[in-house]
């Protein structure tokens, strides 16, 4: 039986102190807060350098109430393996190990270690919070920056290449669980975490994270923008349980509606997309429609 948590049934215990160093309107702050609620008290965290390092606070002050190991950029998943191994030697099979890394730390510099751990089937949950760029160092392009987005090192042309599909790469490792979530749908994230905790091996979460300074929008619109990404069919919420793909939450509802919000509605909310031409947007719209045709067909 799948859990369906509501804002009223969400646990009230907090594992992130209020007043973190996250930017105003940071999508990560939402996903992290809710994610830790789902993981619960009996958890050890692994964090590479990223926005989360800053959010977690500067020594000797910490904003997280769970034990946390800061590790080098490329080593997140291997470090999770190390903690697990140590727990195992002590006969501890109850403490969860969870890695939280950014998109660069996951899909670029951290991919080798993550692939290694996933192939070994090490039993931990890996969260990639995808704000679509190296936001902690001033918003440079990453492998998961979408095509057309202006970044600090693609200043005049925008990124010319496609977004790397990291969850698909992880699914190719035949994991027991892969999920795509969004900070704009925190309860979907919460339920997915609760639903996969018992599954064996490496579990992978990809979380779309609206980023006010990196994407160029007024901080109060973060949730709205995150939702638009889903409602336009541009970013989909799904889970792959033992190889079975299934759209979830708002994306699942779009199947019934058979109507997507035009993608330009999403692009026009953020200054990073201001260079996109009408023909580029039309091409992206075509790709989205094509992808959704596949989803509709699957449903029939």
């Amino acid at each position, binding site marked *: 039986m799948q859990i369906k948590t509501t804002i009223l049934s969400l646990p009230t215990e907090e594992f992130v102190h209020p007043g973190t160093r996250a930017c105003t309107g940071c999508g990560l702050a939402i996903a992290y807060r809710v994610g830790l609620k789902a993981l619960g008290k009996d958890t050890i965290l692994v964090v590479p350098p990223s926005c989360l390092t800053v959010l977690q606070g500067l020594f000797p002050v910490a904003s997280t109430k769970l034990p946390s190991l800061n590790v080098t950029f490329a*080593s997140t998943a291997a470090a999770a393996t190390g903690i697990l191994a140590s727990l195992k030697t002590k006969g501890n099979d109850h403490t969860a190990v969870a890695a939280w890394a950014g998109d660069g730390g996951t899909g670029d510099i951290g991919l080798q270690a993550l692939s290694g751990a996933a192939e070994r089937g090490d039993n931990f949950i890996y969260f990639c919070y995808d704000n679509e760029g190296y936001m902690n160092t001033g918003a440079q392009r990453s492998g998961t920056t979408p095509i057309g987005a202006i970044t600090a090192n693609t200043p005049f042309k925008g990124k010319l290449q496609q977004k790397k599909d990291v969850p698909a790469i992880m699914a190719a490792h035949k994991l027991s669980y892969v999920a795509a979530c969004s900070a704009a749908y925190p309860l979907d994230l919460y339920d997915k975490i609760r639903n996969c905790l018992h599954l064996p091996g490496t579990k992978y979460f990809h979380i779309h994270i609206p980023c006010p300074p990196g994407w160029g929008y007024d901080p109060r619109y973060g949730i709205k923008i995150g939702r638009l990404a889903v409602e336009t069919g541009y970013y989909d919420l799904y889970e792959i349980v033992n190889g079975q793909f299934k759209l979830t939450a708002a994306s699942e509802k779009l199947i019934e509606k058979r109507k997507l919000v035009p993608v330009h509605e999403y692009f026009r909310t953020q200054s990073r997309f201001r260079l996109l031409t009408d023909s580029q947007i039309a091409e992206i719209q075509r790709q989205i429609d094509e992808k959704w045709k596949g989803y509709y067909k699957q449903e029939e």
Partner: protein
Amino acid sequence: MHIIENGNTAAALGVKLCRASVIAAYPITPQTPLTEKLSEYVERGDMKAEYIPVESEHSALAVCIAASSAGARVFTATSANGLLYMHEQVQWASGARLPIVMCVVNRAVGAPWNIWNDQQDSISQRDTGWIQIYCADHQQIIDAVIKAYWIAEKVSIPIMVCYDGYILSHTFMPFDLPDQKTVDAFLPPFKPDYALRPEEPANLNTVTLPDVRLDVRGELAHSYMEIRYLLQEELRTTLDVAADAEKRFAEIFGRQSDPFIESYRCDDADCVALGLGSLTYQLRVSVDALRKEGIKVGVMGLRFYRPFPDEAIAGALKGKKSVVVFEKALSYGYEGALTSDLKSALYEHLAGTGTLPSIQNFIAGIGGRDIRTDDLTKMFRAATHGRVSKEPLWIGLKL
């Protein structure tokens, strides 16, 4: 019990006797037989440990760093480019003050590719805040591994146990294999001050500002500079801890040696050769040959390279007319790193006493170039009366 085994097996047996509980390694020649042996012990059930076959050396040390942070006694081993690939993690391990023990089976670094022995790999990690021990035979390898865990856990600083690839790693030699009871008597179980656990949450290796800050209780906490200062301070006091380890080891194992310098025919010598690792045993043959000619020479093998036992070295070399430093590595652009360190130690302890010996630096065996004892003897003889060249001289160079 005396057994005949190769150097890699000697190291593996040491790790097994020390009851390391998490092992992570990535294959690289000439380290592979060591980690294969450990995987064999674990799979057969002879050793109760988690063996993690990682996808890179960077991850090997990542696993060790994390497992050690969570309270496990850990082990890894590597060589050459594997060690260089770890470099970021090497620095991280000492900064995080983790008592990791790693064997470095010395091999030349690329480019160009070369799988044979020299010591450029570990020497290039000199300034990483690790303790470095060099071994000259198989007994020293197994003993060094056992002592290394004791020292590392006393001072919370990681240790590299270095030994020459092939010359030691792949050759067979008799050595005394201690029994488990003796090792257990020497090395208590690892009990870190803090290990990651949900009941007592802490955020380790957090971003630390340039200046000190108040903690939540209103007390001043260390900042980066204090943390790094303490690493240096405690590395220096490790020399005393190493001496204690030697004493304790002698009491329990009944085998005694000098913790820092292994001397051969040095007492009445006018000229002393100095080096790291197996080369110093080969130099004993040269010493014997030169002694036959009536030249008073000896050889010292340095067992501790970092922290540098400057006082012990200066004390041992006081009154000698000349020192000849044979090295299998160098600080490119100047001279052998050991030569520079030696000069600095002698300046510190002997300057102004009128007893500063002359120093000659020879570079030998780079990329596994065969070191002929005749050549060693010839060069050694040439330098007994004083320095022959300001620049280091390369033995056996064919230019």
